[in-house]
């Protein structure tokens, strides 16, 4: 059981992007991927929901309920955040730049 694994771009076989809301993206700095950031999912009121560690290539992924989300990345070289509106099932891309 891994709770904060570092996901790659592909989805696990048991995940159906036609049914689930998947928030996925990459953490970058100056156009280059940043690995190992702590990526936090915050709900529309700013409340903490989940946290994962981005992979070496900067990738992260969350499963979420419908709604507006803020994804915030913390890294030793800087922090950054982005918002994403997920109305329904599918892959919702969210790119985060840390500075």
């Amino acid at each position: 059981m891994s709770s904060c694994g570092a996901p790659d771009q592909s989805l696990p076989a048991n995940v159906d992007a036609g049914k689930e809301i998947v928030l996925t993206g990459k953490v970058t700095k100056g156009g280059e991927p940043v690995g190992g950031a702590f990526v936090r999912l915050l709900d529309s009121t700013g409340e903490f929901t989940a946290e994962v560690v981005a992979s070496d290539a900067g990738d992260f992924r969350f499963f979420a309920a419908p709604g507006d989300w803020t994804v915030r990345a913390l890294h030793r070289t800087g922090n950054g955040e982005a918002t994403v509106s997920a109305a329904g099932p599918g892959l919702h891309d969210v790119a985060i730049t840390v500075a």
Partner: protein
Amino acid sequence: MSREDVLVTAAWSEENLGAPGVVFVEVDEDASAYDTGHIPGAVKVDWRKDLQDPVRRDFIDRAGFEKLLSARGIANDDTVVLYGGNNNWFAAYAYWYFKLYGHESVKLLDGGRKKWELDGRPLEADPVSRPETTYSAKDQDLSLRAFREEVVEAINAKNLVDVRSPDEFSGKLAAPAHLPQEQAQVKGHIPSAINVPWSKAANEDGTFRSDEELRELYKEAGLDEGKATIAYCRIGERSSHTWFALRELLGYSDVKNYDGSWTEYGSLVGVPVEIGAQN
């Protein structure tokens, strides 16, 4: 007991790497983090493999704990500094566990691995071995550990603090959104419990909030300071984090962790269960 007695900063820790009588211990659910890089000199404890009985649903016994700490090279008079990933969930669990078996000097590294990494402090992947010791544990201090009968009796009588997310509390989810949906037979919470998610006790860098903020947080949520308290979550690790805040930081005297937590309670026959959000 004050904050300085139970929490150390990352800066203090870095200054005390290799100091005699100080042992750093990384505790994780997934031990692979340690293997790719850990605080220099730190030894590893695996939450599942090292601390749980391999057959029964319980902890390793006193002799097992003695064997584990002896093998890790930890002596009775060492100061143990615990840290880990997941905002210190499993390190806080280990802190509670070390207290349960009577270790005298144990501290939590404030912010755990996250704060250490965000500060850009050194990590190394070299294997660590310490000379074996002869560790002697005490009997479990059951004033720190709640069992199911006591939890049922605590309904409407003691503070019950459910530290899971609002969706787990209300019965929408059986586990945190990013963990497998497993274990308890039903969803919901223990009647009369207040819901204060563990995350509210922490800053975004994983350090604990100030004593003033913590006191206000639990007071606001309805914690009765005149009553004993039992904290629970799904498997007892997030509630160790809150147990630490309530007993070790705020100094409330009668605070127990219910390690059976929702995984046990939600599978018991005949006990009351509530669903829905907190009033």
